[in-house]
């Protein structure tokens, strides 16, 4: 975890540090074990459902991508901040062994209910730059004051 971010440190338009991951089969099997989602669509290249979908590679779990977005949001909040909410839509498939990059940008900073809130647009995109998993989040950051 990088140094704690404070409310005074951030401004609208500021980009979040990127997270890049290229999930291989072992990684998706680990995620299956951790999440309890053992759908063979995600780790068995011979799974019959793949062919009708025109796929020869396994599909990355949507929730894996959600968690990657979550890593970026958690990194913004740091240990002293708190994530209020974060959500994504699954707009496109990502495939095994293809690079996924999580990016984000701060869209607003506001004080509400005694909290220092920061809104972000945050998303996962594929190797072609297509936003397959767009989302938003709000975190409460500590103040230096």
């Amino acid at each position, binding site marked *: 975890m990088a140094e704690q971010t404070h409310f005074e440190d951030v401004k609208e338009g500021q980009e979040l540090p990127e997270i890049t991951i290229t999930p291989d089969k072992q990684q998706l099997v680990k995620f299956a074990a*951790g999440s309890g*989602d053992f*759908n063979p669509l995600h780790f068995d290249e011979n799974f019959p459902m793949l062919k009708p979908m025109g796929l020869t590679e396994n599909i990355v779990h949507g929730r894996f991508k959600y*968690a990657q977005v979550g890593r970026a949001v958690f990194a913004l909040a740091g240990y002293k901040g708190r994530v209020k909410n*974060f*959500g994504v839509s699954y707009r496109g498939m990502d495939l095994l062994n293809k690079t996924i990059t999580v990016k984000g940008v701060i869209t607003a900073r506001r004080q509400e209910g005694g909290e220092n809130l920061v809104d972000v647009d945050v998303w996962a995109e594929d190797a072609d730059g297509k936003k397959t998993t767009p989302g938003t989040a709000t975190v409460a950051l500590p103040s230096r004051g």
Partner: protein
Amino acid sequence: MTTDTEFQITDEMKAQIGVESEPWEYEVTTTSVRMYARGIASEDPIHYDVDFAKSQGFRSIVAPLGYVGTPVYLPGKTDPTFGFPRREGGPRLNIPFKGLLDGGTETEYFDVICAGDVLVETSHLADLKLRDRPGGKMLFVTNEAVYTNKATGKVVAKMRLTSIHM
């Protein structure tokens, strides 16, 4: 794949909105948190090292975002592929479409979830939306799960899951 352009959301389906499922326990353990953290390739010690997490002011290692515990697995009562509980009660929708996609996930947090927590989850159908698509229709089904800390009685998270039937 069904392309039934005649399909409509019925009053019977709408009546299922808000119907609560029976509760189910979700366990958050040091092992399950570490396993999930490994699954998402996080190397943040806050998810692995109990002493470090405590030094940062947490009760124990912290659940990564998106992880709200593992539902207690009971053979015959739990889906063997997806691990989610097959409960009595709760909404029952007669959806004619065979295609199914994961539409989205959204979590609202009211507290940090840490290893050692036992969460009691109930879920309900929160929303139904029907949209046109080329050759047919798509039904968006949103379920909301509410997670309550068993020890404190406090709601710690609400997770909304949207599935797309088409």
